[in-house]
C-alpha cells in the first residue's frame, strides 16, 4: 500500500509536467488549429536558459527563473512570427511540418551552443521533502504539483474574468467572427504562443532537477503531452490536465511493476488503446466532419 501511495505521488508530480506541456499544446491548437510539434522543446529551451542564468552566470535561483521566463516570452513571440505567421493561411500540414523544422532548429542550436552533455539543475527549494507516515514527499515534486495547480487556477480566472481572456476564447472559437467584432485576432494568437511558451518553460524549469537537462528531454515530454491531450479529449483544456496526470501515474506504475526499459512505451500503449476504443478521449466530443 505504501509503495502504491509513493508511486501515485511521483506519478502525479511527473504527470503535472505533462499537463503543463499538454496545456500549451491545446491552447495553441484551439487558437490556430495546428499541433505544435516543438512544444516539448519550449520546455527544454527554458531549462537551458535556467542552466545558463543560474549555473553559469551565477544569478540567484528566482532571478534566473524570471530571466528564463522573460526569455520564453521573447521565444514565443519569435516562434509565432517565424514559424506560424507566414503559413497561417495554409492548411494544417505545412504549419505542422514547419513546427517540426523548428523543433530541429531549437534542439541543434542548443546543442551547438552548449554541447551534448546534460546539466544538473538544482531544485527551487533547499529542503529535500518530508515524511508523511511511510510516504516520502519529495520537495521538488511538491513544488511541481503546487505550481501546476496554481497555474491552472490562475489561467481559469484569467480566461473567465478578464477581457483579454474572453478575447482569447473568442479567437479560439471563431476567428472570423471575433475579428469582425473587433478582437485583434493576430495579437491574440501571438499572446497564445507566448503564453504556451511560458507554460512549457515553467514545465522545463520545474522538471530539470528531476530528470537531467538534456537536448532530447523536450521530445520525450512532448510525446507524453500529445498522448495526454488525446486521452483527455483532443482540444479540451480540462482533458489535457487530467490526461497528463493520468499518464504520469500509469507510466510510474508501469516502470515500477513491469519494465524499466519500456517505461516510455506504456504511455503509448494506453494511447493506442484509447484510439481504438474511444478516440474522442475522456472529455472530447465525437469526431465528425461537417459537410
Amino acid at each position: 500500500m505504501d509503495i502504491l501511495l509513493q508511486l501515485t505521488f511521483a506519478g502525479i508530480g511527473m504527470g503535472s509536467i505533462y499537463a503543463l506541456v499538454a496545456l500549451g499544446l491545446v491552447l495553441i491548437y484551439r487558437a490556430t488549429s495546428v499541433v505544435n510539434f516543438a512544444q516539448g522543446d519550449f520546455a527544454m529551451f527554458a531549462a537551458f536558459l535556467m542552466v545558463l542564468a543560474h549555473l553559469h552566470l551565477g544569478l540567484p535561483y528566482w532571478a534566473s527563473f524570471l530571466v528564463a521566463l522573460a526569455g520564453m516570452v521573447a521565444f514565443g513571440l519569435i516562434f509565432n512570427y517565424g514559424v506560424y505567421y507566414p503559413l497561417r493561411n495554409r492548411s494544417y500540414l505545412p504549419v505542422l511540418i514547419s513546427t517540426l523544422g523548428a523543433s530541429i532548429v531549437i534542439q541543434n542550436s542548443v546543442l551547438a551552443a552548449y554541447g551534448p552533455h546534460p546539466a544538473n539543475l538544482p531544485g527551487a527549494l533547499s529542503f529535500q521533502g518530508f515524511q508523511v507516515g511511510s510516504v516520502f514527499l519529495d520537495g521538488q515534486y511538491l513544488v511541481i504539483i503546487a505550481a501546476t495547480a496554481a497555474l491552472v487556477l490562475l489561467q481559469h480566472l484569467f480566461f473567465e474574468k478578464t477581457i483579454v481572456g474572453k478575447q482569447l476564447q473568442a479567437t479560439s472559437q471563431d476567428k472570423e467572427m471575433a475579428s469582425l467584432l473587433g478582437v485583434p485576432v493576430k495579437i491574440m494568437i501571438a499572446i497564445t504562443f507566448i503564453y504556451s511558451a511560458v507554460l512549457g518553460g515553467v514545465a522545463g524549469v520545474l522538471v530539470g532537477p528531476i530528470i537531467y537537462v538534456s537536448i532530447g528531454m523536450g521530445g520525450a515530454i512532448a510525446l507524453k503531452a500529445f498522448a495526454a491531450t488525446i486521452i483527455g479529449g483532443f482540444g479540451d483544456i480540462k482533458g489535457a490536465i487530467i490526461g497528463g496526470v493520468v499518464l504520469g501515474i500509469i507510466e510510474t506504475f508501469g516502470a515500477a511493476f513491469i519494465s524499466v526499459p519500456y517505461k516510455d512505451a506504456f504511455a503509448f500503449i494506453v494511447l493506442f488503446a484509447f484510439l481504438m476504443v474511444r478516440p474522442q478521449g475522456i472529455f472530447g466530443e465525437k469526431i465528425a466532419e461537417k459537410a
Partner: protein
Amino acid sequence: MPSFLSVWLGRIGRELPLLLGGLAAVVLVLSVPMSGYATNIVMQATTYAVAVLGLTIVLGYAGQITLAQAAFFGIGAYAVAIGTVSLGLSFWGGLLLAMAASTVAGAVLGITSLRLGGHYLAMITIVFQQILSLVLTNWIEVSHGPDGIPGIPRPSLFGYTLSGSAGYLVFSIVCLTAVLIFVRILKHTRLGRSMEAVRDNELAASVAGVNTYRVKVVAFTLSALLGGIGGALFASGFSYVSPDQFSLAESIVFLTMALLGGAGSALGTAVGTVLLVLLPESLRFLKEIYMAVYGLSVILIMIFMPEGIAGFARRLTRRLRTPAVRPHHAPALHLHTVTSDHRDEPLLVVRGLAKHFGGLRALNNVDLAVRRNNIHALIGPNGSGKTTLVNVLSGIYKPTAGKIAFADEDVTGAAPHVLAGLGLSRTFQNIRLFRSMSCLENVMVGAQRPGNDLSDVHRDLVARSLAALHFVGMGDRADDSVANLSYGHQRMVEIARALAANPKLLLLDEPAAGLNLTEKQELVALLLRMKGLGLTILIIEHDMPLVEQVADSITVLNFGERISDGQPEAVLRDPAVISAYLGEGRAYAVA
C-alpha cells in the same frame, strides 16, 4: 483489359527518358572507378530514394502525413538482417521477409489510425516510430540491441554474385528506376486519382464513390512496403544495421527529402533525396550547426517553396509545354441505365426520416418520393432542413430515424461511397472540387465510380469524362486547372463530375447560388437537357422563377417538417407555404 494494365501499357512509353536515365547511371557506375566513399554515398542515395518514394504516395498523392517512414525502412532492414544472419535465409528470402513484414506493419498501423487522420496520424506514427526504436534497442535476443547486426550478405542473381560494389550499385539503381516508374504511373491510374481526390477534398471524394478509408490504407501500406524494400536494399548494401539508423530523426530527414523535391512528384522526390544525401557532405564546414541549418531549411521550404523543386521546375517549364490535343467534336453524352427504365414507381422513397443533432431537430418525420425522370424541387425557408436532408440522402449524415429506399433497395444509413456506387451523385452548395487537379481529372474521379456502366478501359473513362464536360459547355477547358476557373464554371465542372458517373439520381444543392442572370438561364437549359437524357433530379433551390421553370413536383420543408408536396401550381398556392415564406398575415391576405 483492366484499366490498370491499359494505363500501364499506355504510360510505359512515356517513361522512356527515365529508363534511359537509369541506363546511363548504370553505365556510369560500371565505367567510372569510384572510391569506397563515393560508392557509399551513391548507395545511400539510391536506397533512401526507394523509401522516400513511399512518401510520394502517402503524403504527395494521398495527403496523409507519416513520421514513421524510417520505422518501415528499419523493419525492412532488420528483416533482411535477421533473415540472413540469424535464420540463414538467402538475400532473396530476406527481401521477401522484409516486404511481408513492412506490408503487414503498414497495413495494421494504417487500419488502426487512418480513421482519424490529420494530427492524430502524425502523432500515432511518431509513437510507432518511438516504440520500434525502443524494441530494436531493448529486444536484444532478436535485434542484438544497440550493437546492431553485422555481416549481412549481398544477393547473387543468375549465378552472378553481386558482392562487388559496382554490381550491387547497378542492382540498386535498377530497383530504384523500377520503383520510380511504378510511382509515376500510379498517379495516372484509378487508384492514383482516387488518392489525389482524397487529398484535395475527402468529402467530395467519398460522394463521388471513392472509399476514402480504404484508399488511405492502401496508400499507407504501399508506402510502408516501399520503405521496407528500401531498407532491405540498404541493409544488404552496407552489410550492417543498428537501431540509431532508423530513429525519428531519420523519419524527419525522409520527410524533408520528399518536401524539398516536391512530395507530389516522384521525380522531384528522388531529386530531393539525392540532394539531401549529398548536402551533408558539402555542408561539412557548418559542423555543429549543420542540423540547425537543416531544420531552418525545412521551415523555409514550407514558406517559400511549398511544392518543392518539382513545383519550381513546373513553373519554369509551363510555357514550353504544349497543351494536349483534344478532338473538337466530343462524343455525345450517352447515359444508359435510366432510359431503359420506364417504370412508374418512384426512384427514391423516404419515409418518416428524422435527423437530430443533440436537442436540435433538423429533420422530423419527413416523407419524400422522387419519380423517375422528374425534376423534383425541394424548397423551404433558410434553416428549414433542406441541406441536412440532402446530406442524409447522400450518406454524409446517418438518419436518427426513418427509412430511405433508392431504386427499390433499402439504403438507410449507407456510406456515401456505397450510395455513389448505386448511382446517386450530388453537388454541393459550396462547390467542392479537387482543387489541384484539372477539369478532366475531376470529372474522371466521378466517371470511375464503382458500378458505372463503363468498360474498364482507360480510353472509355476519358471519353465519358470529355463528353460530360462538353455537355455542360466546359469541353474546351478540359485540361485547365479547376482552381483557375470562375465560380460559375466551377459549378459546371462539379455537375459534369456528377453526370459522368451516369447517376440514376442527381442531387443538386442550390446550383443557382452565386450565378448571374445569364448563367441561371443556361442552368435552366442544362437542367432540361439533363432531364432529356432520362435523368432523375432532386434540386434544392431558392430561386423561385427557376424552380417554376423546371420543376415537375415540389416538396416544401419548414422547421424540419414537410409542409406541402405535389404539383408546382398547387404547392406554390398552398397557404401553408405562403405563410412559411411571407409570414402569417400576408398568407391570409393572399388567401
